[in-house]
């Protein structure tokens, strides 16, 4: 793809998302001005499975947010997902028949950074259903090594992305909750590449996928 006026579209998209997100956060913030200042942090871990790649990958994440009333909260989330894919062949020689030789390896790291809003559907029951949505930016770093040729390559992709999640929390104490949730991440990560003739194209990786995670949600003032 030519490197012509593409940035304008991204900027428009980001501006619209920013406007929507500022309304989404600003209105609850204004509404909650008279409520006490409560914050919470969730540390979570789980599995994420991109739709276009086989296999689940480990995932870690954190959500840091302010409570706007007893049902709504908004803040920032970040995550880290690691996926390793290898090409292997049976080993020669007298080793075990299960032995494999790694011929090539590709590692992918997906890092989202998003603003999010979450709604708890109850604030008094022991089981707390909740759902949330986030929008922001996402980075994908790919690194590959072909042991046969010794060739190493690295590439970074990024773009606007979003995620949504829903789950059930088990209230352990007044301030600690164990959250179990399913989530979906949507995004098409892109980067610019140049072909042999010097033309600039855009390369994309579909990073849509589903996952599940378990997290500890802790409230503090």
């Amino acid at each position: 793809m030519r490197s012509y006026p593409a940035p304008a579209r991204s900027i428009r998209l980001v501006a619209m998302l920013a406007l929507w997100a500022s309304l989404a956060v600003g209105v609850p913030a204004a509404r909650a001005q008279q409520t006490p200042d409560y914050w919470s942090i969730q540390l979570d871990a789980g599995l994420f499975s991109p739709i276009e790649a086989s296999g689940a990958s480990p995932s870690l994440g954190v959500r840091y947010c302010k409570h706007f009333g007893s049902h709504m909260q908004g803040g920032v989330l970040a995550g880290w997902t690691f996926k390793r894919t290898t090409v292997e062949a049976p080993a020669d020689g007298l080793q075990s028949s299960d032995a494999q030789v790694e011929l090539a390896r590709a590692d992918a790291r997906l890092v989202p950074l998003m603003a999010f809003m979450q709604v708890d559907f109850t604030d008094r029951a022991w089981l707390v259903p909740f759902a949330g949505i986030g929008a922001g930016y996402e980075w994908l770093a790919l690194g590959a090594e072909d042991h046969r040729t010794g060739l190493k390559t690295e590439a970074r992709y990024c773009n606007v992305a979003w995620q949504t999640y829903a789950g059930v929390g088990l209230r352990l104490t007044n301030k600690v909750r164990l959250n179990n949730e399913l989530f979906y991440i949507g995004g098409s990560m892109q980067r610019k590449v140049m072909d042999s003739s010097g033309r600039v194209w855009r390369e994309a990786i579909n990073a849509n996928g589903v996952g599940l995670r378990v997290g500890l949600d802790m409230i503090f003032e």
Partner: protein
Amino acid sequence: MLCFERGASAPPHGVRVLLLLMLWISFAGGLLAATRASAASSEWLTVEMLQVGSDSVASTVVPRPAPASPAPLTLATPLPKPKAYAIHLHGGLFSPIDVNAPSPTLGLRLARRLGSHLQGGLLVDWALERKNLEQPVNSLPGLQPHLILARAEGHLVPAMLFVQVNLTEKRYLVPYAGIAAGYEWLFLKASDYRTDEAASATFANWAWQGWGGIGLRLDPGLRVDFELSYNGGSLQRDVLDSSGRPMQEAVSVNGVGAKVGLDILF
């Protein structure tokens, strides 16, 4: 998706739609005026009902000191002013009938309470539909990159006036329905990166929306809404053919959507 009509037959349709819209707005305005006549007493009642019917137990999580004795209510002490405005932030999917693919959509509805069950205001949405022509890049195992050869995208933006009826004001489940009418724009852009060709077009026309759903009232000022919606419209633009004759090009944007939103009173 695209259909072509001769320009000569187009204006009467637009005029008819405009007249219908004016009639509808007059009807809605009259209805609202009649409703507002009794709104004051209803709003006082609503405040009391909302306070009594609250599901919120913020006090269990966020304890607030209760007054030693409730202040006597006299004519000189006004009741708390009811929250007159509401903002509804939503996201979801919109699927035009002529395009078999759902598109993400975001939007907001800013409303003023017009009575105990009625609200009216302005809505704005944005739906994005994007299609890429891609070619796989032969590379490594795992996530596969694709080269984008061509891209087409459409942005659908309605701006409308609406009225919405909440069928209850005190229950936990709140069925509601609304209808809106106004103007809608469709911005189309296509780029073929192989040939360096790009084209864009803007279509616009009167359009309407209707929706119905169920809200979960979490506290007196907050509701989570689940709704189905319908968008109706035929957006048009003027074009010239190769002989210079004016024609009209139309795009049908009829479609259904599913949204989840937050309704916040302030």
